[in-house]
Structure formats: structure tokens, C-alpha cells
């Protein structure tokens, strides 16, 4: 397969465009998806300005290519967006809904967690709800407390939902295509600080399976488990430690749900020491989920206490000075690795 350097943003757009071209039942639903074209500005109509692709810029070009019936621009009404996507998924479409910031799940969560996620079970297996909810997660851009959260822990707690959080452009494309083709509702979390990061990405469509962790680097001494933007920080710490001869294995689960339990446990079994890095929450987060998994199922192979590196139990602060301290840093990961080795 031919590949090229693509940003995480481009990789996502690629996935959307290729799946829309392949399957006429795939539609995009979201706010401002044809921004610049909506409304009835007479001075613009003739100009054929390309829609800017939503505030994320991710869908740029899709409206021009597929038109208003498949790139569906909506009012600012997330509850109707997600509910409509769920209803459409039940009845023959494969909608991809853009939630912009995942933080907005608070205004539309019922449609996702009580409806879409539960249809199949409540209806005794007689429904499928193939939909994707895409949106940004993550701190780092001074977007403040209501635009910087990473609630994938909340989504992963919901039986019926699948939850994906790619850490690089290659994974993003393959996992998003999988998400669109998947017959279950998928929450696809895009970290806002990764959009401009590039990787070598195949030009053609490909899928990556859910529930398969990626060992972004292999190592013998300590397992560091990290997701999404935290993977870079983990690798940064690992680089630093490698210079001192400390060999760190970095495991990126890629999908929070399903979780590659085996992949995680295997690495833990081989190193016996674990650092979990997680941006979601200081309480009841994905990090705690991993710690529970390991402490219940790999207790025997642990040679040191698990180290959990999360943000503090505070909202995300606005000021960059505080926000940088809020985020798990490479330095904190490094310190945690050393701590597990000191036991």
C-alpha cells in the first residue's frame, strides 16, 4: 500500500471520506459541517467557497464532495444530534456524529448511554446501532474546564458502547474506519493536541481491530500503559530512561472498550512493574480500571506497587501555568518508573 505523511486530522478526514465513498449509508452529522455555506448570504452563493469543515477542520472538503444530504449541518442541539444519529443507525444508516468537544456529552448523554448503547440488549438482540460519535478530548490548549476533559472513562463504563482513543495518525485512520464499519455504537475520542502530528499513513482504506493494544516500544524493566496523547509523553520518558539503561515497554491500549486485557497482562507478566498514565480522571478513571485489572489478574507477577499517574482531582485550569502542572508530564512518568524500580 502506498503511504504518505499525514496529520492526525488528515488521517481522520481520509477515513471519513473513503468510507463515505464506499458506503452510501455513511452520513456525517454535526454543527457547522458546511460552515461558510450555510445560510443564504447572496454574495457568497456564487462564490462556491468551500465549507471550512467544522471548527475542528476535520471534515473540510466532505461537504463539497458529498453535498448537504450526506454532510448534514445541524443547529446547535446536541441532544437532537445524538438522538437522531441513534435513530438513524437503528433504521439503516451509519451516521458519524461530530460532538466537537466531548465535554458536551453532558447535554446529550441520554441519547448515547441510555438509548444507543442499550438498544441491542433491551431489544433482546434484535437491533444494531452502527453509529460513531466523534469529538475532541484533552487538555493542553488552555481551553479551560468545559473544553478540556477526557471522559472516556465515563463512556467505557457503559455496556454497549465501544470507546476508541488513538494516539497517532496511523491508528486514527484504521480505527476510525473500523468504527464506521462496526455494528455497535462507538465513541471516537480525538485528542486536540494531536491533530497536527504526522505519521506515515496508507493512502488506501484499512482497518485496525478493536481490543488490540499496540506496544509502541518494547522493554524489559517496566511496563508503562498510556493512551491517546499520553503515549507521546510515555515514550518521551522512556527515551530519557533508555539513555540510563532502563528499558521501558510502552503499551497503548488504543481502545478503552473493548480492552486488550491479555495484551496488557502479558506485558505486566514480563516486567512485573507497572506505571499507568491516564488523563481521564483522578477518581474512577480508566487508570483505576487498569490498576484493578492488573491487581486482580496479575497480582502474582507484580514486583512493586502499581504507580498511577493521573491529573489531580481538580477541574482543568485555564492558565497555562496551571494546566501544564495538571497534565501528567514526562517527568512525572519518569519519576514513577524510577519509583517502581526502587522497590
Amino acid at each position, binding site marked *: 500500500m502506498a503511504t504518505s505523511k499525514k496529520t492526525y486530522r488528515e488521517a481522520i478526514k481520509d477515513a471519513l471520506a473513503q468510507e463515505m465513498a464506499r458506503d452510501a449509508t455513511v452520513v456525517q452529522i454535526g454543527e457547522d459541517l458546511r460552515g461558510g455555506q450555510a445560510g443564504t448570504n447572496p454574495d457568497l452563493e456564487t462564490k462556491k467557497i468551500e465549507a471550512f469543515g467544522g471548527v475542528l477542520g476535520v471534515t473540510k472538503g466532505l461537504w463539497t464532495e458529498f453535498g448537504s444530504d450526506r454532510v448534514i449541518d445541524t443547529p446547535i442541539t446536541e441532544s437532537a444530534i445524538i438522538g*437522531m444519529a441513534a435513530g438513524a443507525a437503528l433504521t439503516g444508516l451509519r451516521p458519524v456524529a461530530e460532538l466537537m468537544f466531548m465535554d458536551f456529552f453532558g447535554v446529550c448523554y*441520554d441519547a448515547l448511554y441510555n*438509548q444507543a448503547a442499550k438498544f441491542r*440488549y433491551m431489544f*433482546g438482540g434484535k437491533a444494531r446501532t452502527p453509529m460513531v460519535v466523534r469529538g475532541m478530548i484533552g487538555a493542553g490548549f488552555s481551553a479551560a474546564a468545559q473544553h478540556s476533559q477526557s471522559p472516556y472513562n465515563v463512556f467505557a463504563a457503559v455496556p454497549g458502547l*465501544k470507546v476508541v482513543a488513538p494516539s497517532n495518525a496511523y491508528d486514527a485512520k484504521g480505527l476510525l474506519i473500523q468504527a464506521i464499519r462496526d455494528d455497535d455504537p462507538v465513541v471516537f475520542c480525538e485528542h486536540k493536541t494531536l491533530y497536527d502530528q504526522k505519521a506515515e499513513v496508507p493512502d488506501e482504506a484499512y482497518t485496525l481491530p478493536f481490543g488490540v493494544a499496540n506496544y509502541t516500544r518494547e522493554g524489559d524493566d517496566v511496563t508503562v500503559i498510556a493512551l491517546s496523547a499520553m503515549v507521546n509523553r510515555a515514550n518521551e520518558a522512556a527515551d530519557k530512561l533508555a539513555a540510563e539503561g532502563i528499558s521501558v515497554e510502552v503499551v497503548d491500549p488504543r481502545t478503552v472498550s473493548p480492552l486488550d486485557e491479555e495484551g496488557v497482562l502479558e506485558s505486566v507478566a514480563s516486567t512485573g512493574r507497572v506505571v499507568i498514565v491516564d488523563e481521564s480522571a483522578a477518581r474512577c478513571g480508566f487508570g483505576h480500571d487498569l490498576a484493578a485489572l492488573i491487581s486482580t489478574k496479575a497480582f502474582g507477577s507484580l514486583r512493586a506497587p502499581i504507580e498511577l499517574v493521573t491529573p489531580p482531582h481538580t477541574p482543568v485550569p485555564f492558565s497555562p501555568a496551571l494546566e501544564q502542572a495538571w497534565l501528567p508530564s514526562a517527568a512525572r512518568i519518569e519519576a514513577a518508573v524510577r519509583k517502581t524500580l526502587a522497590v
Partner: protein
Amino acid sequence: MSLNRQALLRAYRRMSEIRAFEDRLHEENATGDIPGFIHLYSGQEAIAVGVCENLAPTDYIGSTHRGHGHCIAKGCDIDGMMAEIFGKDAGLCHGKGGSMHIADLSVGMLGANAIVGGAPSLAIGAALSAKTLGNGGVAASFTGDGGSNQGTVFEAMNMAVVLKLPIVFVIENNGYGEATGTDYAVGAPDIAARAASFGMPAVTVDGTDFFAVHDAAREAVERARTGGGPTTIEAQAHRWFGHFEGDAQLYRTPEQVAELRATQDPLRIFRSRVDARKVKAAEFDAIDEESRARVDAAVAKARAAAYPPAENLLTDVYVSY
């Protein structure tokens, strides 16, 4: 009222089945054998049937916690419904859903819904599917007067207008949300006018009168099917039982309920509106009899049926995981 004899009989049968189903459930519930909560539809039969008689099996409806009537009107199997309500494996949802989650996509029933105001946004999704796939399909959602105050309902209305979706929003105004009066909870002078202000045609009809509902729904469904966008129908009809089985109904007197049953019986009103030369009273009586027998049989089967096997606990969460 240009329905032919066959259509009249079919509509009456649906209403009669709903009545028999709900009246019987009222009794069954008293035995303590029905798990959870049930909300009965008696008194509102003309609304579900008046709307659904305008829909094809390939059209979709979204429903409420008070969903039995909608299910029957849309063609759900009565045995399957009854078994579901009893929590049995033979139920339409294999006992996993219960009264508030009965669904059957094969007849276009997107599910009862235990979240008040849940249906409209799902139903506009079905309407979007129809529009996108260009199959001429239509969707309808049911919401109560209480539920009509939920924000998501208004969002769905606006979305439907903006996208010109083929949908009919049915608001069933039965005078109460639980024990709270519509006159208290709806600040607007008029539920239909409120919907109209979102930019769509909206009408108020007597929900005890099948023909009034049917006419309004026919017009609305036609509009939707021909690309004319959404409509709201507010249909007014009181429920005869409590909010749920067990409700002491402090908010109204037994006399008021008796009066209701005497004067606002959708089945009796239906009969009175049909020319006795077209359909004889005995024919209606026979249908009622058949409905009760149908429900009898359903109860017997449901009671005899097995609970789901324990291993079913873990199935049907995902298509694949």
C-alpha cells in the same frame, strides 16, 4: 371519514385489542406476577391507532413508557408483548426489556422508552434514514403532555423543520404527567401552538375520536411522505387508569374517572360514528370478544412460558466485542 369497511374493522380491532390488553394487565398486575412497573393506555386507544393506521409496516414510530397501545397499533405481536411484560424468554425482547422497552424493528416499532421525551429525537433519526435512503418512509413519535416540556423534544422539532424531515410529532395530552396537571406544568396556553412556533403545521384534535386523529394524521403523513416536512398533532384524551399500576390517583376523584369512562370512551365513540349499516353492533361485539380471547391466550402462554436462561444475561450487549 372515507374509510372502507375493511379499514374500519381493522382500526376497531386494534383499538379493541389495546383495550383488552390493558384491562387485562390491570387485573394481572394485581396478582403480583408482573415484574416492575406498567403504565396503561386505556382511554387513549384512538390516538395510537388513528396515527398508525396511516403508516406502513416499513414506517417507524418511537414511543413512551406508556407504550403498549403504540406497539399494538404498529403491529407488534400480542403474545410476544405479553410474554415480555411477564419477563419471559418468549417475549419480544427475550425478557430483557420489559413493558417500558418493548420494541420490534421488523414492524417499525423503535421501542417504548422509559426516558420521558426520548422518542422524538430517535424518530427524527428514522425520518433521516427515510429521507437519505429516499425510500418514501415516514416516522412518528409519541410524547405525553408532560414530556412535551422536555428540551430534547423542542430540539427534535427544530431539527425536523431545518432538515425538512418526514416526521409527525404526536403529543398525547392526557391531562397529567404522573400526578401533576398539564394546566400546571405546561406554561404555554396551547401545546400545538407552541410546536407551530417552531415553523411547522400543528393541530389539536380530540384524541378520543379515532376519525379526528386519523384525518389529522393522514394529512400529516401525506405531507411528510411528499417532502413537506414535519407536523405536530396534539391529541387530547384522558387515561382511565392511574399513572402506573399502583397510583392512588389522589389528583382526581373516582367520580371523575367514572364520568370519563362513561362519556369519553374511544371505542364507544368509534362505534357511534360508524354507520350501523356499514358495520353492525354485533360485529363490533364479536371483535371485542375476539380481542379478549386473543389476550386470554397471550396471558396463558406468557404465564406458561419459561424465564430466560441465566446464560442470556451476557448475550446481546454488542454485535461483536
